């Protein structure tokens, strides 16, 4: 029996093709991308601040922001013209497939660090596009999906209230009261924990409250289940969350619209949506 001998005979092209390697384009530096160039600020200190986000350098991000604040640059401008521009550039590269999730998470960490520093000077929370509440269903201990959703939302300029995991229905309803969110996201890993979603919707309705949409996703969650109760939208990828939030915010899309136009809103083919 010679495993090596077998192996030496094989033409891999008839067995498995690494399409990721096959279709990879030439390497570029992040700031060489044309769309990134058009997004990055040209004037200092904003450019350096944005670049430190783009380079995923939390320490330099923090240092640059602290220096700018010492130079009496407006914290609002630092956030909007520096940190967020860097994050926009990161999002562009992620969408194009040059950047990957870790890039986005680390850049996000750097961006958030800078924002916190600015808020210290401001004395209050900075303005965001809107508030989104994110939770993991009761009985469910898995939260990496929720954590990604939160980071994508923050990277997209939204305030994401992170309620953690194994969150009781009551707490979610209270959060709707407290934050009046633009949108909610709930994740669940199991068929027997995703049943919290319709119960939450039910409670919200009973209280006479409303939330424009609750995006449900994760593990065993299916579209047909999610669409069996109102207010809900089946979310497929974590990075779709800010796009749905934008659609609600800018285009006044309702949960019914989101269900119908999901693919168009997130800008790509989604197998679950015909």
């Amino acid at each position, binding site marked *: 029996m010679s495993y090596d001998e*077998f*192996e030496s*005979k*094989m*033409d891999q*092209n*008839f*067995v*498995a*093709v*690494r*399409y990721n390697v*096959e*279709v990879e384009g030439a390497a570029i530096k992040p700031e060489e991308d044309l769309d990134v160039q058009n997004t990055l600020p040209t004037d200092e200190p904003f450019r350096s601040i944005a670049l430190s986000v783009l380079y995923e350098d939390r320490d330099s991000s923090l240092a640059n922001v602290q220096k700018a604040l010492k130079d009496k640059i407006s914290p609002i401008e630092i956030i909007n013209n520096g940190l967020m521009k860097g994050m926009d550039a990161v999002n562009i590269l992620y969408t194009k497939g040059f950047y990957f999730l870790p890039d986005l998470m680390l850049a996000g960490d750097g961006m958030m660090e800078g924002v916190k520093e600015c808020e210290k000077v401001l004395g209050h929370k900075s303005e965001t596009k809107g508030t989104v509440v994110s939770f993991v269903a009761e009985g469910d201990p898995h939260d990496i999906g929720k954590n990604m959703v939160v980071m994508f939302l923050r990277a997209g300029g939204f305030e994401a209230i992170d309620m953690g995991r194994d969150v009781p229905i009551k707490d979610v309803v209270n959060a709707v009261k407290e934050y009046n969110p633009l949108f909610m996201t709930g994740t669940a890993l199991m068929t027997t924990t995703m049943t919290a979603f319709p119960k939450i919707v039910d409670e919200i309705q009973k209280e006479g409250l409303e939330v424009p949409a609750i995006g449900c996703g994760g*593990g*065993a969650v*299916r*579209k*047909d289940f999610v669409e069996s109760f109102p207010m809900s939208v089946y979310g497929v990828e974590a990075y779709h969350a800010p796009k749905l939030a934008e659609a609600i915010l800018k285009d006044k899309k309702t949960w019914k619209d989101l269900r119908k136009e999901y693919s168009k809103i997130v800008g790509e*083919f989604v*197998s*679950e949506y*015909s």
Partner: protein
Amino acid sequence: MKRFTKMVYKDSDDMVFGHAKFPVSQHWNTQIGAGYVVPEIKVAPVEGSEETKEGMVSECRNITQSACERAVAIGLPAFMVEQEHIFQQTNNPDWTAECTQVQAETLEKYYDEYDIRVSLLATPADIRIEERDGLRGSDYDNKIIESVEASAANGASCVAIETIGGKSVSDYGIARGDPKAILFGIGVLGSIDMEYMWKRIVDVCRKYDCRPAGDTDCAQANTAMFLAGGLLDKDCSHTLAALARAMAGARSLVAVECGAIGPLKDCGYENPIIKAISGVPIATEGKNAVCAHSDLMGNLSAAVTDVWSNESVYHREEMGGTTPEVWLQATGYEAALMNTAIQTGQEKILRDLYTLTDKYRDPQALVLAYDNAYRIGEAIVKYGKDPYLRARAAALEAGAIINEAVESKKMYLTRFERDSLDHALNIFEALPTESEQFTDDCIRKYSRKISEFDPKSYEL
């Protein structure tokens, strides 16, 4: 029409998956039976998609694109999408045209971008109803041919069909354990109707860059198989189902005799017999078609396949993705195993393992083991010029194969299986050796008993 009177394969041991004596070339750089096995994905359109043309087109696009996405995500070198038409699609050839076009465009996009080998099999539905204007020249009949043409003209790589000629009679026979009705329905009526259909289908396909693929005895032998069901079911005897399958080999061969070149369609469990006789590549289904039905030869049916299929699945979501994704991955991984065996020169060992896994699980599996399928092929070509006699010979040979295995204590039969086999073989042995006499007998007997059966549908 050329009838097969000799075997193309000279030895059953020459048959193996991924290789056919006469490989088929299609556009998008796909070859079938040319040294690699192609996985197939087939998804039943969701309920409601039949309401409008737009709905159906969108459904077809989604199924195809989902399959493409998964194929490149897991690194499949090649795959085939089959679209089995729903009633409305075949009955409205403009639906066929638009659905086929959007599927072809989608596949071509991925072919262009990733160099992945893709193939599109269009299978119009045989929507004819014997008791409603007969099988020939009815509105339904014309729509089928129009849909074949719409498929061929709009980018299908190949076209298949599951014709239903003889079904009213064989259904009667299967439900009642009447071997003569089964032989008449499959061997005589089925063969006559296939000739009528396939001459026209081949003529249409030849006008386009589209291959006439093949037919399956889904309507007859598969009815027997499904009814036979599992080991503990009590609807149809498994030995009789095995004989029906052998006869189906004689019947489905007609497509090839009319010019079909393969791959023969997946649900034709008789395909190994036809491959042995004619050398055309075949599609088969087995352990990755559990979504669609339960058979007793999940591995064996892979032994000499060229296209490996999931048969059918609801279009919906699994935890692992949507069904076009999940089930292409299932057939894709099995095809990858077979292709590894080919690449390393171990294909005959894997073939034999597949075969031996199921050979004695059930009488039908036994007669379809490639060596036995070959024997049935030999029985068929011996009487190759006469559809009746060759179907009868196929059944008798299948019976002999089962009895030999029983005698050598490898196959065990229940009393029900034993009795119905003896009963059938006794009847078959006593039948006339003249086709005409048999046909006249049967017309007399079954016209009376089966209201749907109309000899005029077969020009009898």
